[in-house]
Each structure stands twice: as structure tokens, then as C-alpha cells.
């Protein structure tokens, strides 16, 4: 066990955990955040995705000690129910979910791509999402929401 300091969603938190603990467990259990979720624990599905240095990172396989002083942003760190972030609003407007468990992976992966490559082609968006899973298969609405966000950024 070790005291580890983390920057998450604009706040600083100190937790006492094994440094090998996956970041996801710290976010879910210690900080009680609801955005990133345990899907597979194998970095195969995306449900645990967070943003670190504007990149989409799978927190289920990243040891918390590797985060160091980098700012971590979870889905709830983007916006609030009262004031959603533009990509959250795009998903709300398109009704782009069923159970919604996968949304951290879908939204944050898409956001990371489009923030870096605002003009990304549909093929590039598909490529970025080629290992993100949604088992309710709300795919068509999600792709529409991502395109809506992309148009709104332009």
C-alpha cells in the first residue's frame, strides 16, 4: 500500500492503495466515480475509458502508479446533467444509447480523436472505434451522435 496522489476531474485526491491497482478500481471504489466501468478488465471493450493528456486510455489495465501527475478526466468530468459537454449533448440529442454502460468508451474515444483531428473522415472515426464495443448495438445512433459532435466543433 502507498499513498498516491491523483488529479481527477479538476480535483486532487490522495488514496492509499497498492500501486499496481488498476486506475479503474481507484476511480470506481475509492473516488466512487460512475463514468468509467468494469467491462472486461482486459482492455478489449472500452467501458473503462478515461482521458489522460487528451488521449483515450483504458483504465482497467493501467496501474494507478503510472498515472503520476497527469490529469485524468472521466465521463462525468466533461459536463454535468445541467450543463452537458457538447459531445454529451450530441448523444442526448440523438438518444444514442440503450443500457448506456459502454458510453465512456464510445464518447471519450470519439472525443479524443475529433479533438485532435477535427476533420477526421468517417473511415478514421470507424478505425478509432474498431475496438470499442456496445452490446445493445446502438451503433447507428452513436455514429450519428459522433458526427453531430464533429459538425458542431467545426
Amino acid at each position, binding site marked *: 500500500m502507498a499513498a498516491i496522489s491523483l488529479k481527477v476531474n479538476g480535483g486532487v485526491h490522495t488514496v492509499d492503495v497498492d500501486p499496481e491497482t488498476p486506475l479503474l478500481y481507484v476511480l470506481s471504489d475509492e473516488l466512487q466515480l460512475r463514468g468509467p466501468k468494469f467491462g472486461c478488465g482486459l482492455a*478489449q471493450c472500452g467501458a473503462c475509458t478515461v482521458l489522460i493528456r487528451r488521449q483515450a486510455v483504458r483504465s482497467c489495465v493501467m496501474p494507478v502508479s503510472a498515472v503520476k501527475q497527469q490529469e485524468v478526466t472521466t465521463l462525468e468530468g466533461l459536463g454535468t446533467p445541467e450543463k452537458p459537454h457538447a459531445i454529451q449533448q450530441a448523444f442526448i440529442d440523438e438518444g444514442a444509447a440503450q443500457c448506456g*454502460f459502454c458510453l465512456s468508451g464510445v464518447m471519450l474515444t470519439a472525443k479524443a480523436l475529433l479533438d485532435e483531428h477535427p476533420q477526421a473522415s468517417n473511415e478514421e472515426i470507424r478505425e478509432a*472505434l*474498431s475496438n470499442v*464495443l456496445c452490446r445493445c448495438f446502438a451503433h447507428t445512433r452513436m455514429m450519428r451522435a459522433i458526427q453531430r459532435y464533429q459538425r458542431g466543433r467545426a
Partner: protein
Amino acid sequence: MKKEISRRDFVKGTGALVVFFSAASFLGPFAVAQGPFDTHGSHIDPEKLDSWLAIASDGTVTAYTGKCDFGQGMFTAQTQLVAEELCISMDKVKLIQCDTSMTPDQGTTSGSQSTPTNFNTRNLAQAAATARDALVGMAAQKLGVPADQLTIDNGVIHADSGRRVSCGELIGDKHFDITVSPTAKRKLPSEWKILGKPVPSMDMVGLATGTFEFVHNVHVPGMVHGRVVRPPEIGSTVANVDEKSVQRVPGMIKVVVRSNFVGVVAEKQWQAAQAAKDLKVTWKPGPGLPAQKDFYDYIRKQPSGEVMLVNSNDVDNKLKSASRVLKATYLHPYQAHGSIGSSCAVADVQQRHATVWSATQSVYPTLHGVSALTGLPLDSVRVIFVRGSGCYGLNAADTVSYDAALLSQVVHKPVRVQLTRHDEFVSESYGSACVIEEQAGVDASGKIDVWDSETWAVSFGGRPGYERPGNVITGMLAGFEPETITPQKWVAPTQELRNGSNAVPPYMAGCVNGKCGGEGSIRSERVLTHAVKSPFFTGPLRSPLRLQNTFAHECFMDELSAHAEVDPVVYRLQHLKETRIIEVVKAAAKTANWDTRPSPKRDTARTGSVTGRGIACVAYEGDNGYAALVAEVEVNRSSGQIQAKRFVVALDCGPISNPEGLRNQIEGGVLQGMSRALGEEITWDDRKVTSTDWQSYTTLPLGIELPVIESVLIDRPAAKAAGAGETAITLAAAAIGNAIFDATGARIREVPFTPDRVKAALSSRE
């Protein structure tokens, strides 16, 4: 769930069970007032209006339902229903779903039954209609105006004179103390202002902003973490558990062994995960598994429980005299629910009572299961539904609830159990593998005279229900017996036609004892089903057996139409007589601009990519929703890859409660069906399941090239409300298979349509 409601809170005092809420939050129940439910859950009498509804003095309504939302939209639709019948806005309704201390026992949320159960003339809908009647009656007395001269709008009852009284003033915080009236009149769909409108999912804002509470997010004070150690092989049993192997794991609390159930509990989740990985368990080997490559032959040779669903007793003679007999065998594999979130539950089992936070579809049956596992009396157990990830049927939500209860009981602390992805794949109850043998005799014109269908479906365990905790893996490991097959010969069907999970093709007349309950015109008909013992646990998976059977019937119908050289839509219509299925077929074909001609396409290219279209239709379980799907696909002849280009779905579920939710179900259903058709299959070696993650079990990711999906909604306000979540998925494999045939002339009779199978089917034609 931060604020837990103790059942004791309900015991004293008077007043209806009103749940206060703020418009900003629809998360988690936090009831504060007192209620009528002074003993255990089953005492929530569904005959009493107060069991379904309570109205506070400020006019807000708390409604209780035993049908819960997993992402299929029941929360929003049921809120619309209550608001509509009580003539108030949706933001005045707080819906409490599936909590054994608060909601009536409505069994399991499954089988496309939530809408038929709660939206017709019983249960929640009828309770709301009864409440409206009662309120108007009270207002009539109070205002001295006959009830038929009163109108109700936005929670206020008005007389022509301008006098008015609000519903909150009339009943606020008090019991109705009346029974649900079977004669209370429901509002007509023509009067609807809230139902029937495209209402966005009420969960959407919480989901998109990461604030929605899933069962994975439940935190209970003092909670510790458990993990399970499942047997490495099917049927292996515990020989020895070396507890010392984990004694040095930091935070270790306990190794729990009960019969063949093994689990660990530690302070933190990561510690529990380490302990589960490190724990040395010596297992006795299991009996081994039948070889997967011969499995379909194997199941046909096993003893079986037979059911004859329909038998005109002339089938053998008619087959002999037919101009031509066609035969085909269709194969469908085991498939996983494969929920995106590996299942999770929290249980707090104390000496005298237990609370379980569970994503189960069946809170009351789970209460019974937890009672059996813990030895606690039924009225000491409370099960609270908290949504998990989409389940699509009996995933591992029930079994992980049992896991949490078993571990909590030993450590006397609340325990959260998170299954790993591997645990989930080996713990869940797969959709059944099936063999469907079809034969039909046709006349000289190709029209069907006689259809004979024989099916084999594997089964082991299933839903635990109220009596069988052994029906899921944890219950069995802890020593409870699973339900298994009793071999028996068929007897002649009696009374009326049973559809048998769509084992009966819609083209049959379905005549039993002179009464014809089918949707078609074929009168020489026989359907015999066999239930065969499965080596793996099985359980309902979205459109259970309906999907497998429909895949076979609808592909075989296509084979027959091709033999007759008649267009597949025209040929179907020649053999159907039920209006509603005919209408969906016509609607789908019309919207798709169906190219009317026999399949396969003539003169298609021998190389490169070719395109084709296929159709399939279903009357879900005979009368619970109707749908037709036109699929347009592109087949890459060299790679064997299938690319769906367009799906057109026509769907009739009676009066439509929420067209927005319905479209979402159709779109997701048809794509999930495509994923199942193209890639999903449980695999195993001679001892264990080998598809245990997202590399060994294929699912179509977000990044695929998506087909265009068009939904045609057929609203039937005068019909009974029917299910709608399982019809579109039922058709995907058949419509895609038929489109591949149309494009290439190659018929693939085994799901999934992997590139290798497509190439094999193509080369067998050359």
C-alpha cells in the same frame, strides 16, 4: 444506493408510501414516508390500488412496477403510461421499479411480456385508470357535480362552473383503500397526449454524463470486495482448497468454500482479484465434453423430452404423394448474452436479514433463491433492482447475486462481487444450440401441401424461478440441483395450438382438435420438438428459440420459393392468412422497393462482390408482435465477408407506447441479430469452454461499416399492446441468409455465417 430504506420504516404510521423526488434526479429510490406494506414483499397485494400508486398532497405520483428497465425503455414507457392515465405531466411521476419491499411481485421482466402485462387492462395500467376514476368520483362528491360533467387535466379536476380541485387535495398522502377495478376505463389511444409520442429516454442525460447509477456503482457503508473462483472445467469439483496460499495477500478477509462454490473476500477489489488468482484449489476433473465438431449429431442422438405441437396425422402419406419433397437441416450454435459489463452485485447478509442489490430480471425469484442459499426466512430478505449493463436475458446477474449473498453471509459484511470477463463467459446461461430439420412436400406448381418440422434444443438449468437456485451455476456449486431434461415420448396435442417458441412455422394452419390457431394455410402439418440435456447451463437469450426456429423456417421457406421459382415475398403471401403478418411483409417489401422476382438473382458475377436481398417475417410466439425484415447484403466472393447494406423493418406491436423507444429497440435488435448471425458462437475443447473473452468470442464493434436501417411502424390503436423488443432480432439471421442466397445461389444453413462457411458454401456450388 446511499440511502437504504429499512422495511421497518414502513411498519408504523399511516399515509401512503410516497416517494419524494426532485426533477433533477431520477436515480435510486429514496422513500421517506410510511407505507402500507408492513410485512414482506409478497404481501404487496396486486389487487389493491395502493400497491401500485400513491399520490402526495403536492400532486406528485409514486408508481410501483415489477417490470424494470435494462435499457429497453420500460422506465420511460411506464412513466408515460402512469402520466397519461392520471392526466399529469411525466415530471410529476416517480416510478419505483422492482424492489421486493415496495413493488408488487410481477415475476420476471422478460419474454416481451412487460408491455402486454402492464399496458393492457390489468396491473399498472388498470391501477392508474382505477385511480383516475376514483379521483373523479371523489371530486364529484366534493364539488357536488356529477362525475360525467368533470374533466381532469394536469392533476386538476374541473367542473364546467369553473370550480376545481386538485388530485393532491383529494387524496394527498392517504390510501385509496380500494381494489383495482377491472371495469375502470382506460383512455383510448385517440385521447393520448403522452403515450404514443416519441419521448426521449429519461435515463439518457444521466447516462451521457456518467451520473447514472448502475449496480456496479452501488456503495454500501462497510462494503468489502469478493471474487469467485469457478471450476476450470465443466463439472469439475473441489478436492482441496489451500487457504494458506493467499494468507499473505494484503487485505485478505476470508476464503469461502461451500460444496463446490469457492470465493474470496478482501478489503479492496484489487486484493480480492489477486487472491482469486493466487488461491490454490485442487479440482477433480470433470467428465469431459462431447466434441464440438460432432455436437449437432450428438444432440440428435440423445434421449429427449418430446412435445408434439401440431399433428394433422396425414403428414407421412402427404409426403409420399407430393410432387416433390424438399429437406434441409439448419444448425444454430450456443451464443452468449455477453453483456458489456461483467456482472456485479452487492449483498449484505446479516444474522437476521439480508439485502441484495442486484441487476436481476427477477427480484422476487431472487429473494427466494437468496433465502434458500442463506437459510434466512423469506420475509427477512430484500432484493433491490439496480440496473446492470444490458442483459438480453439470463446473463450472470442472478448467479452473481447468489455469489455476493454466499460471501456476505460468511463475513457478516456487505460484499460486492465483480465477475471477471472470463467468469462471466463461464458463469452465464447460454442461448441454446439447436438443430432444426425441415421437410416439405410441394405440388406441381411448387405450392406447399405438407410441412414437417422436427427440432432439437439443448437445455440445462435456466431461470431459477422461486424454487430452483440450482438452475444457475452458483446455486449448483453450492449444492442445489439444476433442472434437467426428463426424457419422454410425445403425446397428441390437446386443447389449443401452442406455438412452442415459434417452433410452429407461421405458414401452418395450426389446427388442433378442429381449431386452427396458426397464421398460415398449410393443413398437413407436423411439429415435433425435442428438449435435450445440455452440457452447459442454458437460459433465455433475447428471442429464445424463437430466433433459432425462425432462422430455420424462414430460410427453408426461401428454399421452397426458389424451387417453385416464385418471388419470396409473393410465395410467403400465398401461404399466409393472418392479416397482421401479411401487412408487415407487404409494408417491409414496399418500403424496401422490393425487386419482385425469384431468387437467386440470375447471371450474378462469379468473382468480386455481389449483392442480394432477402426477407423474413415472424409472428412472435404466434400473437405477441409481428415483424418483417428486408436485408440487402453484399457478399465478397473471394474473402467470404458479408456486408449488410440496408435493413428495412416493418413492425406491428399494437398501439405504440413510444415510437422513439421502439425505433431504438428495432435498430439495436437488428444489428445485434446481425452480430449473432455473422460471428457469435460459444466454443469449447474436450473439457472446457474456450470462448471466454472478446477475442475468442466475436462481436461486431462500433467501427464496422453500418447498414442503413429503416423502421416502418404500424400503429394499431385498437389491438392489444404487444411486445416489441425481440421481433427484429428474430429475423436477422434468416433475412441475411436469404440475401446471401439471392446474391450467390449458395445456401448457408449454419449460424454463424463466418467467412469460411460462406466460402465453403460458394465453392460447393462451383
